[in-house]
């Protein structure tokens, strides 16, 4: 499975490229109940035991779905509104595998043992044509081989989807993949070539473009009705009809378990039950799975929860074999260990942030947040050190941009290791007063010197305008509410009054997005649903470039657009560092600490250490798991 930008409730710091010695991850966290957990120097928590050799085939594995993020889209071409790690990594990818797989355990690197290829694509001399060789390792559950035609089928359906609407694919940016592809071909069953309209950085192509490819069964899905004949999907009209058919089927949640389309899989499990009320889902082992690992466990039940504590209680009672532990329950980590549960946590490869809405014209909010000094003032009101200590009980790494402090990525610029906007109410106040605002602590700050001079409020900001706004944040986990309340309290000290509103992860992802729901643009000023995972080549394309499919706040900066574009075409790794440095300074949102993703699992559940480590990166590899005696 490949990594790319996907939404998460909480994300964490980048894991350094390079081996992470799991057995040496120091761990701590007390064995007594209700003790304060302690993170190791690399911000990990707990240990992963070695795999047991006492394999007991069969059984039912009970795992937890994340709260408010229940999967609701099954086809591996996922619209932006439905796109999240919970839907794709932890639901779709049990059944359909991606062409290039990452991470390698918790390390952000390509894992060719799980991929459908044995190495990176080869690049032609002119730098425009990329050739992918399939390794023939994967087979569809109906016995047919996964071939290059299945890759092309995915590509043509992707084209049809984004032609219909850019919002039909989460990682789509106009002018880029697949718009930048001038030719595709399948010279044989195991070879695919893509020719681009310009020379591109191969790491960018792999990390941002090819990482999205999830081969789909052309022999079973290339039709436009249940009993229709197979169509030539390379014809745009046919591709559209097929996409419409598959998309409509994916919207019918109540047919997930009965629709024969979803039973043709190349992954280790296929869906057997979906609860439309709760989003809970069951999967059964694909007996014809030929990829890496072996689905020893007969059934996987993904259980839905409405609160972290309810899920934690099920972990404690043994009802769950594998589940997460949110910061709400960190003080009780010791109880799980007392029960013999294994506990391990690590910041994930991504970032958390609250983002500005640059399209909200109510009260001139768009004009206000367009001013960098105002975003800087807001950034000075976020106290990361206090958040790590008070909210995450120490289990989080600082992050001042899309690449956090730890673990350090090869692309992390030095400037990203120190906080450019340390917490200071006075500095925030100074930034406003020096730009023509009259700050009234605990009152309402207003612009009293409109204009575009250096000491005036800025373009479009009117006299008497205030900075009050509405902030939506996800109701779980509790940590987001704590951070947002603290932020609102700090803003109040400079006379900015925030109306706090909560909603579920899925609702915020859909509703508080200028991409998905532009009709709501004037309803919110900032929002926080969590954050994003990052690509192995962690460009912020799609996230912060003008028109990016995940650019939920509508941020636009021509200079940053150029830098993002440069990361795409330049082979120089400094290009990406320059892009990250610019994002840190530009503040399209306020970056937050990267919390450890802490997981706990039953002492009767075992498997490779990599497969459990991968869970901290939102990946599920139950084909590597089994129950023990």
């Amino acid at each position, binding site marked *: 499975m490949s990594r790319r930008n996907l939404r998460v409730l909480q994300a964490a710091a980048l894991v350094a490229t390079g081996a992470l010695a799991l057995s040496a991850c120091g761990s701590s966290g007390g064995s007594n109940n*209700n003790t304060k957990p302690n993170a190791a120097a690399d911000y990990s928590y707990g240990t992963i035991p070695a795999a047991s050799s006492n394999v007991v085939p069969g059984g039912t594995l009970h795992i937890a779905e994340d709260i408010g993020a229940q999967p609701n889209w099954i086809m591996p071409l996922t619209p932006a509104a439905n796109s999240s790690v919970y839907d794709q990594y932890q639901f779709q990818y049990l059944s359909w595998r991606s062409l290039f797989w990452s991470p390698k355990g918790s390390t952000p690197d390509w894992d060719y043992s799980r991929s459908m290829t044995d190495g990176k694509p080869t690049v032609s001399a002119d730098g425009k044509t990329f050739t992918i060789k399939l390794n023939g390792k994967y087979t569809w559950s109906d016995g047919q081989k996964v071939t290059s035609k299945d890759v092309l089928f995915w590509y043509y359906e992707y084209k049809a989807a984004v032609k219909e609407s850019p919002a039909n694919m989460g990682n789509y940016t106009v002018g880029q993949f697949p718009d930048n592809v001038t030719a595709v071909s399948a010279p044989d069953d195991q070879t695919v070539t893509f020719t681009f309209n310009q020379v591109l950085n191969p790491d960018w192509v792999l990390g941002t473009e090819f990482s999205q490819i999830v081969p789909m069964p052309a022999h079973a899905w290339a039709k436009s009705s249940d009993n229709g004949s197979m169509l030539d999907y390379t014809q745009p009209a046919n591709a559209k009809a097929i996409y419409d058919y598959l998309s409509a089927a994916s919207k019918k949640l109540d047919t997930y378990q009965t629709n024969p389309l979803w039973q043709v899989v190349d992954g280790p499990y296929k869906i057997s039950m979906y609860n439309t009320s709760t989003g809970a889902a069951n999967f059964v082992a694909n007996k014809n799975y030929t990829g890496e690992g072996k689905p020893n466990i007969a059934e996987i039940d993904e259980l839905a929860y409405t*609160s*972290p*504590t*309810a899920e*934690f*209680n099920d972990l404690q009672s043994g009802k769950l074999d594998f589940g997460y532990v949110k910061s*709400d*329950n960190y*003080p*009780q980590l010791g109880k799980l260990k007392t029960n013999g549960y294994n506990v391990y946590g690590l910041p994930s490869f991504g970032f958390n942030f609250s983002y500005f809405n640059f399209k909200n014209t109510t009260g001139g909010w768009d004009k206000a947040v367009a001013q960098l000094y105002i975003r800087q003032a807001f950034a000075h009101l976020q*106290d990361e050190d*206090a*958040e790590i*200590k*008070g*909210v995450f009980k120490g289990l989080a790494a600082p992050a001042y941009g899309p690449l956090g402090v730890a673990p350090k990525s090869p692309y992390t610029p030095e400037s990203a290791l120190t906080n450019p906007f340390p917490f200071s109410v006075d500095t925030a106040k100074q930034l406003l007063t020096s730009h023509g605002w009259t700050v009234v602590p*605990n009152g309402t700050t207003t612009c009293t010197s409109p204009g575009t001079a250096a000491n005036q409020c800025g373009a479009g900001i009117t006299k008497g305008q205030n900075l009050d706004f509405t902030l939506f944040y996800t*109701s779980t986990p*509790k940590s987001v509410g*704590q951070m947002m*309340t*603290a932020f*609102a*309290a*700090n803003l*109040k*000290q400079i006379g900015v009054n*925030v*109306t*706090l*509103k*909560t*909603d579920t992860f899925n609702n915020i992802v859909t509703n508080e997005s200028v991409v998905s729901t532009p009709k709501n643009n004037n309803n919110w000023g900032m929002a926080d649903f969590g954050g994003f995972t990052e690509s192995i080549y962690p460009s912020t394309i799609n996230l912060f470039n003008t028109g990016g499919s995940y650019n939920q706040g509508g941020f636009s900066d021509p200079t940053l657009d150029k830098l993002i574009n440069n990361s795409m075409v330049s082979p120089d790794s400094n290009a990406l560092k320059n892009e990250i440095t610019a994002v840190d300074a530009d503040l399209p949102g306020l970056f937050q600490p990267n919390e450890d993703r802490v997981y706990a699992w039953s002492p009767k559940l075992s498997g490779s250490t990599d497969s459990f480590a991968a869970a901290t990166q939102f990946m599920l590899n139950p084909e590597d798991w089994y129950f023990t005696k």
Partner: protein
Amino acid sequence: MSETNTPAVSTETETETARGVEDVSVTIESPAGPEPAVPAVSDAGELQSTTSAWKLTLREFLKNKMAVAGVAILVFFVLFCWLGPVFYHSNQNTTDLLNTDGAPGAGHPLGTDSNGFDIIGRIMIGGQTSLWIGFAAAVIATVIGTLWGAVAGLLGGLIDATLMRIVDILLSLPFLLVVLIISQRYGANTWGLIIILGVFSWLVPARLIRGEVLSLKVRDFVSAARVMGGTNTRLIFRHLIPNAMGTVIVNITFQIADAILALAALGYLNFGVRYPNTDWGSQLGDAQSNLSNGYWWEVFPVGVSLVLVVMAFNFIGDGLRDAVDVRLRKR
């Protein structure tokens, strides 16, 4: 009511007074005719000629120890919530993330919550919100319910049937679900919650007042008012509602308790008011994890406050009901 052994008490007048008839005094009269020889001092003591109905009610109310305890508890919490912050200073505006979930100790006698706010100060301002929303929502519900019930009861016929079927339909809707949906869209602030809770809580008062009006409207004084040309509006506002006021007042105390509990449920489910305000339900919202995490101070003090206040309103309501209903008075 004073006891007397004179047989000349007008029982009709007494019954009406107990129901709150517009004549707010009980007149104990001697029978017409020649004055009998009256001893200087009555065997039953000095005869009082007139006693205010409200005094009678108050006297009865004060005899009810639970009701008095309810008043005392309520007065305590009103003073605690509104006067408390004058004497007990805590910062309820600025969070303190470096001191979250602090156990009781110096500086914070009842500890701090997950935002670092002092618990005692939090209960004070949470109590202000809960009591204010409870009271205001109850007033709104009672006003709507009283008018609705009075109109239905007085007009009768098709209008009565229509109005009461509307009440029946609304009663069949799950209250909490409706309020949750509306509050998700429009709530999360004090006035929003007051209106939501008030507008969805008037159904029971409407039924009660309708029943009261049905019995009142056939009384002579209502007939007399009607014969003299009194309009329906005048009948409702001058005769029926004033005479049903006992029921209204008793009901409002229960309405307040119900509204506070409903607000607590909303807050617990994360639909209550948000920073900078708070309410007791919102403070209880993290009770599950807080209790298992061992942070009892974030649960029990506010929980006990909520229970005591709701209990106090119920005691007061019970006491008032006994006091205004002559049939329930101790003799």
